[in-house]
């Protein structure tokens, strides 16, 4: 079941669209659900589809199309790091190596304590601050150095 808070948040998004176009809120609805649950299950996607009166398969298409949705359990803190050209030119590879070594995981893996997961990301549209990463799709950290990464991980872990 979708929680009351989830429904309130989805209803707020629905106000942006005509009454007969509820499907327009599916990306927002799945984002809201993912933010609460950490990742999306088939059941949760189906519930979102039901709530917006749309076919389940159409909601599934959306969940599998957009890169920021997680269809498998992620860590409590999902780290997405950009490795595209502008970040690569400013040594994002070094940050990736540092993160992998520090967390002892590879891309698309979760740490044993389920605290962190790591994901390779495409351009985040903030290349002036390269190299950069986001945590849980919402908080962005720019101008990364290995030292800064250590500090961020420590803060999240505490």
């Amino acid at each position, binding site marked *: 079941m979708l929680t009351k808070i989830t429904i309130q948040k989805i209803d707020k998004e629905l106000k*942006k669209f*005509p009454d007969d*176009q*509820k*499907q*327009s*809120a*599916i*990306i*927002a609805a*799945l*984002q809201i659900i993912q933010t609460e649950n950490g990742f999306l299950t088939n059941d949760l996607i189906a519930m979102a589809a039901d709530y*917006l009166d*749309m076919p389940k398969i*159409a909601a599934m*298409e*959306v969940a*599998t*199309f*957009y*890169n*920021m*949705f997680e269809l498998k359990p992620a860590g409590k803190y999902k780290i*997405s790091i950009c*490795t*595209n*050209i*502008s970040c*690569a*030119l*400013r*040594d994002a590879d*070094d940050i990736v190596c540092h993160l992998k070594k520090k967390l002892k995981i590879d891309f698309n893996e979760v740490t044993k304590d389920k605290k962190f997961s790591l994901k390779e*990301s*495409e*351009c*985040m*549209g*903030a*290349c*002036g*601050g*390269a190299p950069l990463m*986001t945590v849980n*799709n*919402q*908080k*962005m950290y720019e101008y990364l150095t290995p030292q800064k990464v250590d500090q961020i991980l420590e803060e999240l872990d505490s």
Partner: protein
Amino acid sequence: MEKGRQNKAFEKKETFPICLRTSHLDDSASLKTYLDIGGYQQIQRILREKISPEKLIEEIKISGLRGRGGAGFPTGIKWSFIQNDSPGTKYIVCNSDEGEPGTFKDREIIKNNPHQIIEGMTIAAYIMGAQVGYNYIHGEIWEEYESFENALAEAKKANFLGKSICGFNFDFELFAFHGYGAYICGEETALIESIEGKKGQPRFKPPFPATYGIYGRPTNVNNTETYASIPWIIQNGGESFANIGVENSGGTKIFSVSGHVENPGNYEIPLGMPFNELLKLAGGVWKGRTLKAVIPGGPSTPVLPASEIMKTTLDYDGLKNAGSSVGAGSLIVMDDTTCMVSTLKRLSYFFYEESCGQCTPCREGTGWVYRVIKRIVEGKGKPEDMELLQDVSQKISGRTICALGDAAAVPVLSFIKYFKSEFEYFIKNGKSMVAKTHD
């Protein structure tokens, strides 16, 4: 406008902030800051004086403003496609889904000057008789999405949006839409599909959005920077804007400078500025190294070697004559330690990953290209690989519904054109000609 400043700008050695004119101010994004610099006065003047849409479109045509998202289509002409008095709901959409690698200008406008986007969109709505608008914001910049929501709330509260704007007989509702990680949604019909709650696969055109857009209704889609330029143009006149730039390239343009420069960031400059002046503004090539190559407008625009870009001016004709394009102004600088083969591998992976899968040449071709470059980088390249890469790229180009396929071919063809010997060396020796030096 102060004359002194305008004259200086004509020398094309300094930035000329229009879209980014609040960036240096405290509390830059607030309604108060925007009102202090004369914000929302243009929409009020238009409504008060009942200035006709035709007159406004004429002014925008004179300004020479061209779509800042990459296509460079003249804005004034585009805005005459939707009839102001045609019946039914019409939509105004702002495309802030900047995902082209190296592009980060819309983020700064949203972050520091959101009300100028709102005023620009409201003027667009007045011109085209639209009632509803959406600003589609790139998935990864959640904080900017939230701050834009705040700006919308401020504007609504102050009656710059909503019913009877500023007491006049004009309604316009504007909403923020948050994307969720799909480069293709920067393509306007994919973006429209996304707003309809579908996966972002581009539509076959025609019909164009001006006749068949969101929910089948007439829709105008423009880039963030385009809308944000409008209030200044209406305030100062089209000619003032045109005069800042050069012929065919009116006004200012934000160049997002990233990669190997001392000071990466956004530089809003008069169009027509020589590249070397912008490079100076960005602090020059970092670590005192030598310039090797520049991608002037994002990976969808051809790379230029240092020898070419150093004699080029940054405007639509200047870059076109040099064999590239302004694109979204996503200027990526590469120094002499850059391995062009590995760089192309990353770009090709990007297009492969982001192809929506709808058209076979793009879905399959981008994968082919990526796998061939990957095997070269792994030291398993074959002598015929360069020809194969060019052949596959040429066969994607022009055979797809949208421009992503063409874009995927651009880096392959231009990297091989200018840096052929590096590819040959890599294939022959199984290693890069350029040893990457880490300081």
